[in-house]
């Protein structure tokens, strides 16, 4: 089956593209997808922390790693968000 990947922020830079179509085995989960993408970019080893801190939205809803993907899903890779103002504000 095919899903559409959207990448944002630093993940877009890492994947070198904002959108990509990906072929996955039937029954693949969000975790499977992340493993595949991480392997594809493993030569950029400095960026591994990005894969640990991201969130994934499937069809615009936050989704867990165990969620099963379906044909035509829109899967967005979201680095930690930084809307509003500076991060130091949280402190």
């Amino acid at each position, binding site marked *: 089956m095919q899903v559409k990947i959207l990448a944002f922020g630093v993940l877009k830079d890492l994947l070198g593209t904002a959108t990509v179509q990906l072929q996955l085995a039937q029954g693949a989960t969000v975790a499977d997808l992340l493993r595949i993408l991480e392997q594809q970019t493993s030569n950029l080893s400095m960026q591994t922390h990005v894969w640990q801190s991201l969130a994934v939205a499937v069809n615009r809803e936050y989704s867990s790693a165990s969620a099963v993907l379906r044909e035509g899903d829109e899967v967005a890779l979201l680095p930690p968000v930084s809307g509003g*103002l500076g991060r130091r504000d*949280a402190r």
Partner: protein
Amino acid sequence: MHVEIVDTPIESASIVAAAKADSDGAVCIFDGIVRDNTRRRQTLYLDYEAYREMALEQMQRLAAEAVERFRVRDISLVHRLGRLQVGETSVLIVVASAHRGAAFDACRWLIDTLKKTVPIWKRETFADGAVWADGEPFPEHLAARSAEAQG
């Protein structure tokens, strides 16, 4: 409720004026503006980008949840995208309520929650380079990989 993502300057005065009703006694406003530095590194400008449809949906839910949770009368929540200069407003939150306690609480909850959950990112251009701003870690229930899986 007035929830919007815009690509042009946020007209704070008119949004605030439109947010008031006769039954309100208190209006609490949060105006997030582009600061001229981050950790003393000089900021030239910021570029905000969003997963736009999802960000708007998330903002609408946050506003509705805040009305419900804090029993305030009305909320305006506007975020701007694109290139912003120092001093410009990136996010404006207006909470109108009969009473001030609820207005403050809702306003603060909105900015705190927006900053952790609404898919908007900021690329900061300094005098000596550009970076994607570090975001705040996602709340545990939103992160794709649990703390356990990371360990």
